[in-house]
């Protein structure tokens, strides 16, 4: 097996191995460290020496040994007797009963996700811990992906585990309404991981892990594991469809030197037809059967754009209807901004500008560069070049993204 194949295998096994240990010992933080060490050992040994016959069993045994070593040395230091029962080989725990093994594995990975996305943990820490404990990435890979030093990321992960411990969270699946609430957090974390990968602004790094791919892999995993009857299943599918349809445009959203290309100017022939097909089918099928939700709506909007041969030929009426529903469902000034763009396409730029007027005095968006960028765009459509120029300039000053600033400066320049 090549090291890439080994890495893929390890990442699939990681949550399962971790779950076995946590189930046995209950100490999530210590178990997580031990699994990370076992994964690193395997990544070093397996490509050279071959993959063991039972790779999961190997990992459980090695991680379990690390854990007992650690406890032994701790208890020796404290002159305390260890009460560990280590008679049963760890790998036997992996296959207790073939019939319920799969069910258990299903619950385990989801339970781990719920634990990593614990509400007591800050969003950046939820992201980091999820990628390590469920995604099986190393701290170094995660640090590179987020462009922070490894020591910073290591600390973030360890703080997250400490918070979970302090919160008294156990390795158990939340039930009832709490489960639905917590699943919403999990989906949001997956969405943030995807976005982080999609909108990353710093220079190219060949060793950078593809966060978008990782987010899609984990979302597929959640979808596979969650019963289709779960009330949140529709939104999981919606999120996956949104990611697929967004990722389909990736090759065309920036020029080779990193300048942003807006939707209207993207080369649609280079959009990924397979991803579009999968995403579109998924969202259509989901919306026909599941209760409607914000991820499905956003995916549906992305699907309308994906099937249009050009901006002019886009079914803007449908886009507008979808944004209106979304704005009612999750009132939010960012959604209103997008609704204003769609309104301008359907009813003319002045109607769009009127809608933007309703955001005046909304503190959540006051001074935000997107408000000025959209206003600039609508003023340009309305033929007011001087005012459009001014708003693009203001937007360029207020963004903290370098490609976005370049793009907005160009738009302003064109109107001079």
């Amino acid at each position: 097996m090549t090291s890439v194949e080994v890495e893929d295998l390890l990442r699939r096994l990681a949550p399962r191995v971790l779950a076995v240990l946590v189930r046995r010992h209950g100490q999530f933080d210590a178990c997580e460290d031990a699994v990370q060490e076992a994964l690193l050992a395997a990544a070093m040994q397996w490509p050279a020496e071959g993959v063991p016959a039972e790779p999961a069993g190997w990992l459980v045994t090695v991680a379990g040994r690390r854990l007992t070593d650690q406890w032994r040395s701790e208890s020796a230091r404290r002159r305390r007797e260890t009460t560990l029962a280590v008679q049963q080989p760890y790998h036997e725990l992996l296959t207790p009963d073939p019939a319920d093994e799969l069910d258990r594995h299903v619950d385990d990975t989801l339970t781990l996700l719920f634990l990593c996305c614990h509400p007591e943990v800050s969003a950046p820490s939820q992201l980091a811990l999820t990628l390590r404990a469920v995604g099986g990435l190393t701290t170094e890979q995660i640090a590179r992906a987020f462009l922070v030093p490894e020591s910073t990321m290591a600390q973030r992960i360890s703080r997250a585990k400490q918070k979970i411990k302090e919160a008294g969270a156990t390795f158990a699946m939340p039930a009832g309404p709490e489960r639905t609430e917590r699943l919403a957090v999990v989906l949001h974390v997956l969405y943030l991981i995807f976005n982080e990968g999609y909108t990353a602004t710093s220079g190219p790094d060949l060793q950078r892990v593809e966060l978008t791919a990782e987010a899609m892999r984990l979302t597929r995993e959640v979808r596979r594991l969650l019963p289709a009857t779960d009330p949140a299943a529709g939104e999981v599918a919606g999120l996956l469809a949104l990611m697929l349809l967004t990722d389909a445009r990736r090759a065309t959203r920036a020029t080779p030197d990193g300048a942003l290309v807006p939707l209207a100017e993207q080369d649609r022939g280079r959009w990924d037809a397979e991803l579009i097909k999968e995403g579109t089918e998924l969202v259509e099928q989901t919306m026909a059967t599941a209760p409607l939700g914000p991820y499905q709506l956003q995916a549906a909007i992305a699907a309308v754009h994906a099937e249009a041969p050009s901006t002019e030929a886009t079914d803007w009426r449908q886009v507008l209807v979808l944004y209106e529903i979304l704005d009612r469902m999750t009132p939010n000034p960012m959604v209103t901004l997008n609704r204003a763009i769609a309104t301008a396409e359907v009813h003319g730029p002045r109607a769009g500008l009127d809608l933007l007027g309703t955001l005046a005095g909304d503190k959540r968006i006051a001074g935000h560069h997107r408000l000025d960028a959209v206003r600039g765009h609508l003023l340009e459509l309305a033929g007011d070049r001087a005012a459009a120029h001014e708003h693009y300039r203001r937007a360029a000053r207020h963004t903290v993204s370098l490609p976005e600033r370049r793009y907005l400066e160009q738009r302003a320049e064109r109107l001079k």
Partner: protein
Amino acid sequence: MKFLLIMQVNPAVLEALTDAERESIGNGHAEFMRLTQESGEFIGTQALADPANTLTVRGTGSVPAVTDGPYLEAKEYMGGFYLVDCESRERAVELAKQIPDTAFGGLAIEVRPVMFSAGFEM
């Protein structure tokens, strides 16, 4: 999001501090570093030497001119900075408030988002 927390200092204010105040600022910085390191938000910090040591290389349109002293003559100058990576602008402000300088009139922390970074240990 990465932010530079820029410590704006006024030498007159610094000189007027008592020893006890100076010590509390020193301890406060050690504590701030410990807290942000523990939370996984700390990337780095640097304290800068007094502007008496500053040289300015000024563009002139042809050969750059080198002069003694800072670019702008001002009462306040940048004394140092923290580079942090945190969840939001609100969190960056919260962090800035924990920097001990903010307990003294005439000292300030400027919170500025980072747009591009390269070359740090990352």
